């Protein structure tokens, strides 16, 4: 057995066992980490739910191609390797938008892989998913082989000291395939098995691939740390251990005559500016669209906000792990030299060369980490894609009816094993061919082909399924033709003439100069053709074709993922026969297991008691449930398979999706087709408008009810509809109806109770929709409904204010599920309007009744009042007449009486004087009595005459400016004898030269006499009486004109006085305060009354101030003549 043959097979030298032991221990350590993370997750304390771990898992980007290959690349193309890592840094700028959106979409749609993502975006198209899966497997498999190769060859390097550099066996690093010995002797085979075990254990623990693999993520993150530490250790050793730091190495290279070229790019086709640009583009796409990157960044993402930190942590990681690539590479060149195939191992060989055993083992572990991480994640990802996008659809097409839940998880594990073993097979077949070494960039070139479909799918709703298929097909075919075919040629599997003369001698089909495009490097040439054709086909075909409904819906779900849900789900379909929930659960259990199926339903209904919920669900809820079921299955088998599963299942049960009955006409699902939507909206609004117009125009509840029922029948072709209202006796009765049989109307009369639907609606205030009247659970209603032949119905409560007053019902005899959710919404609104109308009408009715009652009362009162008023008027007239008659009578009578009285007095005096003959003393006394009484009587008559004259308006006075002094003097002259007679002391106080007053001298004299007479009369003998006359200068008492000046005349005595309570009636007619006083003092009782009227006729007033027993003061005011001088006024 040659050395070359030996090196790959299992060997049992101690070094081999040691390294194998370390490797296995390390893998066991990873198992432990993964197991611990899974355990932590079960306990609800996730280990990986933080941005740092997330960023570290993304570092799965750095495979062994980075760990070993970068160094080798430097020795070939200088700094060009850096583009592979700067590209992701640039992409990180866009993560805030693109990655966030991809994560949100994937979470909402239970996306399981990149193939699933594309398939789901373009209408859950299983063909697309299969296409991407196949291309991904073709593109990634060799990449896995590359990792296996790196593990295997570095393992050998460590275990076979004879292979070490410096032993002249450098060329022994294998460069050809090995088929000479059985696979079970190869190290790589066992490595593959261990990795497959790892993948199966931690990448396929659950069926639901959209669930996180926390164990795997934790292991990957650990590996990322290990590989960084390992690379850093080697880097530090080389840079500062072997050389004097960065500057030293770089300056040495700068002064090296051959290697100095490596400090620049654009020195060969391999590192031209063009290829530099190409690699940047490729790596920018790879960090997001490589299946393993998509998996770690999107599927395994725990929280969207982790992006915020990961977007700089990952570039920082890439920066750090590449920091020592250049020193190691240049150090290796300076120390070891040799071609890049040797340079690939500098990380290992440099420590080995300097007998740094443990460092080399650490480096090996770092490389092992890089390789296994990539292999595990890729295999899990590809296996998921394989299962969900190829095997499941195939099984479904073949109508495999077995219970798949058991098989699915094992199929998935099998898939992981299969992928890794395929990688191993590749490794065996192609060995160290050209292709394997370049597989990194070839994989990148394949991954970027998904970019147009994904980015277009994220932001362009018009991107269609056919566009995506066309783009991907073009892209992958060009990729295959311009990249894989030349690789096969370089690997020697195809004749070299293809690349020189073109296939079959057709120069324009030369894969590296396609259509005569020369001057491009290999990668740029391929990228140009594949990506440009991909983009053009995607755009053009999308624009030419149109989308079906599911495509449109998915496009909206994806593009508008950040918009509120309500905009995105417009229902237009519904299920005609929806399966029972128990059946649904059974179906789900086939794919996701019993427990998960149960929890899905429990979560959907938010209750574990959901079995009887179906009848109450409306169309939209059923659609949502169906979507939920599909999603939960999608988590296990991918979206396209889930769609097929659900569709075929529903079909098998006779439950088909159908268009919602044309109750509103065709409603377009897409918001873009908003014209139809708009028309629909207009129609709805017009119905509502009409309803509200009816409500507003009529105040008759019956009228409104009938109008709205007519509207329902007319516009929506409702078979039966009715309005039930609660009567005062607590019975719910049909008040208006259309299309119902009389017995229905009669039988439906009952008190509201939960035993019938109208009662339930009334009591709960909720809209009740039963889409299948056969499946109802209220016996009372069942009889009614079936009697009437009702297939589906809806009932909405009628609210007035906040009180439920009745129920609006509509039913269909035509079909089940007649009422769409939109209609129910409208129906609800109609019920509300009806409630408002009835409420208003009732209020109005009440108001009208009140009004009427009030009117009657008012009328009654008015009549009564009018009658009273007439009576009063009459009485008033009568009274006035009586008063006048009285006055007239008195005036006449007084006059008639006065004449004889004068005669009596005159003749009596003659008799007393003895003119007719002498009389004796006795006779004289009697005659004197007659004369005194007659005089009194005459005085009385005079007074009455005066008063009645005044009252009858026959008293005339002539007002003119006169001298009050003159009047006063004349009056006093006549009264002095009286004072003397009673020996009363009289004093007069007056201003000198009093101004003239407006007055009638005759009447003024009468006033003065009346007042002074009273004073004399009610003052005892030797009493004091005074009269004061002055221009009044104080505040005028009320009743006088404040603009004028007045003369105040006060007559004061110290006589008997007047009691306070009598003051008010003092000026009344025939008033003598004490009944005895008239006898004692004489007088008619009319004096003050006349005085008052006389004063008033002078536009003055009279006041009295008195204290009982002390005396009285009567003051009257007369206007001065100053302003009215010369003016005569006649008052009547």
């Amino acid at each position, binding site marked *: 057995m040659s050395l070359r043959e030996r090196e790959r097979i299992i060997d049992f030298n101690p070094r081999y066992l040691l390294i194998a032991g370390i490797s296995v221990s390390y893998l066991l350590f990873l198992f432990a980490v993964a197991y611990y993370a899974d355990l932590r997750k079960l306990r609800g304390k996730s280990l990986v739910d933080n941005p740092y771990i997330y960023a570290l898992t993304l570092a799965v980007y750095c495979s062994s191609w980075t760990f070993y290959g970068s160094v080798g690349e430097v020795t070939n193309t200088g700094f060009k390797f850096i583009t592979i890592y*700067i590209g992701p840094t640039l992409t990180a700028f*866009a993560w805030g938008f693109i990655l966030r959106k991809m994560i949100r979409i994937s979470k909402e749609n239970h996306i399981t892989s990149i193939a699933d993502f594309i398939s789901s975006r373009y209408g859950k198209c299983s063909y697309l998913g299969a296409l991407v899966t196949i291309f991904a497997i073709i593109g990634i498999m060799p990449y896995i082989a590359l990792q296996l190769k790196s593990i295997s060859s570095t393992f050998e390097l460590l275990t076979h000291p004879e292979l070490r550099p410096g032993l002249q066996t450098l060329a022994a690093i294998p460069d050809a395939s090995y088929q000479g010995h059985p696979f079970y002797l190869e190290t790589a085979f066992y490595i593959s098995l261990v990795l497959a075990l790892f993948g199966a254990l931690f990448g396929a623990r659950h069926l639901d691939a959209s669930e996180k693999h926390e164990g795997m993520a934790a292991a990957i993150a650990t590996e990322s740390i290990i590989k960084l530490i390992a690379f850093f250790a080697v880097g530090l050793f080389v840079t500062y251990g072997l050389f004097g730091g*960065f500057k030293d190495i770089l300056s040495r290279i700068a002064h090296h005559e051959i290697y100095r070229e490596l400090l620049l790019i654009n020195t060969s086709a391999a590192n031209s500016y063009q290829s*530099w640009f190409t690699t940047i583009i490729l790596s920018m796409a790879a960090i997001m669209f490589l299946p393993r990157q998509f998996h770690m960044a999107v599927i395994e993402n725990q929280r969207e906000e982790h992006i915020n930190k990961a977007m700089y942590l990952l570039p920082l990681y890439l920066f750090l792990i590449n920091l020592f690539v250049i020193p190691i590479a240049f150090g290796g060149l300076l120390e070891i030299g040799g071609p890049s195939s040797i340079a690939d191992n500098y990380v290992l060989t440099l420590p080995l060369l300097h007998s740094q055993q443990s460092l080399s083992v650490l480096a090996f572990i770092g490389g092992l980490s890089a390789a296994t991480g990539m292999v595990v994640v890729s295999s899990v990802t590809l296996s998921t894609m394989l299962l969900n996008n190829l095997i499941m659809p195939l099984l479904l097409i073949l109508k495999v009816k077995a219970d798949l839940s058991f098989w699915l998880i094992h199929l998935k594990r099998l898939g992981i094993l299969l992928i890794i073993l395929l990688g191993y097979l590749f490794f065996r077949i192609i060995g160290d061919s050209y292709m394997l070494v370049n597989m990194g960039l070839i994989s990148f070139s394949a991954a970027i082909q998904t970019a147009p479909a994904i980015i277009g799918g994220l932001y362009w709703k018009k991107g269609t399924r056919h566009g995506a298929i066309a783009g991907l097909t073009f892209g992958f075919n060009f990729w295959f033709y311009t990249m894989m075919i030349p690789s096969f040629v370089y690997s020697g599997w195809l004749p070299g003439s293809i690349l020189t003369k073109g296939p079959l001698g057709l120069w324009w089909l030369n894969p590296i100069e396609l259509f005569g495009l020369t001057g491009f490097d290999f990668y740029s040439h391929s990228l140009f053709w594949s990506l440009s054709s991909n983009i053009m086909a995607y755009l053009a075909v999308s624009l030419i074709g149109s989308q079906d409904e599911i495509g449109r819906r998915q496009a909206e779900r994806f593009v508008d993922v950040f918009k509120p849900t309500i905009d995105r789900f417009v229902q237009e379909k519904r299920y005609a026969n929806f399966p029972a929930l128990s059946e649904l659960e059974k179906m789900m259990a086939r794919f996701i297991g019993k427990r998960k199926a149960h929890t899905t339903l429990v979560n959907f209904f938010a209750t574990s008691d959901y079995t009887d919920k179906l009848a109450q669900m409306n169309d939209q809820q059923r659609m949502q449930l169906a979507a939920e079921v599909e999603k939960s299955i999608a988590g296990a088998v991918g979206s396209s398979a889930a769609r097929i599963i659900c569709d075929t299942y529903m079909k098998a049960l006779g439950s088909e999706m159908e268009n919602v009955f044309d109750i509103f006409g065709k409603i377009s699902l897409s918001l873009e087709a908003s014209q139809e939507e708009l028309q629909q909206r207009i129609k709805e609004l017009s119905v509502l408008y009409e309803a509200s117009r009816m409500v507003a125009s009529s105040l008759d509840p019956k009228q409104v009810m009938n109008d709205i029922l007519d509207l329902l029948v007319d516009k929506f072709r409702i078979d039966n509809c009715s309005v039930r209202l609660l009567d005062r006796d607590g019975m719910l009765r049909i008040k208006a109806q259309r299309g119902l049989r009389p017995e229905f109307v009669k039988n439906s009369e009952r008190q509201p109770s939960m035993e019938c639907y109208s009662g339930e609606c009334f009591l709960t205030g909720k809209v009740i929709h039963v889409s299948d009247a056969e499946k109802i659970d209220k016996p009372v209603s069942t009889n009614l409904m079936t009697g009437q032949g009702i297939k589906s119905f809806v009932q909405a409560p009628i609210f007035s204010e906040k009180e439920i007053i009745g129920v609006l019902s509509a039913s269909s005899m035509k079909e089940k599920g007649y009422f769409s959710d939109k209609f129910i919404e409208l129906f609800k609104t109609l019920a509300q309007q009806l409630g408002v109308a009835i409420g208003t009408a009732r209020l109005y009715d009440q108001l009208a009744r009140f009004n009427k009652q009030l009117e009657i009362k008012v009328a009654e009162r008015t009549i009564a009042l009018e009658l009273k008023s007439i009576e009063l008027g009459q009485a008033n007239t009568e009274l006035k007449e009586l008063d006048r008659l009285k006055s007239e009578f008195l005036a006449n009578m007084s006059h008639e009486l006065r004449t004889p009285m004068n005669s009596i007095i005159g003749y009596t005096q003659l008799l007393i004087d003895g003119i007719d003959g002498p009389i004796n003393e006795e006779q004289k006394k009697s005659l004197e009595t007659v004369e005194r009484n007659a005089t009194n009587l005459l005085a009385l008559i005079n007074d009455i005459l005066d008063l009645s004259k005044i009252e009858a308006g026959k008293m005339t006075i002539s007002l003119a400016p006169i001298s009050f002094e003159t009047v006063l003097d004349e009056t006093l002259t006549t009264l002095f004898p009286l004072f003397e007679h009673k020996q009363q002391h009289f004093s007069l106080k007056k201003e000198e030269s009093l101004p003239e007053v407006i007055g009638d001298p005759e009447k003024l004299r009468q006033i003065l006499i009346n007042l002074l007479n009273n004073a004399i009369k009610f003052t005892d003998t030797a009493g004091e009486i005074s009269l004061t006359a002055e221009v009044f200068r104080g505040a005028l008492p009320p009743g006088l004109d404040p603009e004028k000046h007045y003369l105040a005349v006060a007559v004061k005595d110290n006589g008997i006085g007047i009691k306070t309570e009598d003051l008010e009636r003092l000026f009344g007619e025939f008033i003598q305060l004490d009944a005895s006083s008239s006898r004692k003092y004489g007088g008619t009782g009319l004096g003050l009354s006349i005085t008052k009227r006389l004063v008033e006729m002078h536009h003055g007033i009279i006041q009295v101030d008195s204290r009982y027993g002390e005396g009285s003061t009567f003051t009257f005011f007369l206007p001065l003549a100053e302003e009215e001088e010369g003016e005569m006024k006649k008052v009547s």
Partner: protein
Amino acid sequence: MKKAIHILYKKEWWVIFFILGFFLINYPIIHIFNKDFMIFGYPAFYLYLMLGWFGSIIVIVIYAWLSSHRP
């Protein structure tokens, strides 16, 4: 200062930085540095790449900080 930070809150900046980064790392800008001369004893192109790379990471740090502290 406040105004400057406020301006940076605009998302469009990050598209601009993205495009700027893309230009800075490609021909013809790199052609300026892809020449045989040294700065501070380091090859000019090496220094440009490493500093530029690190600088762009700093920019992302600022962006991430701003977007998680958006008022």
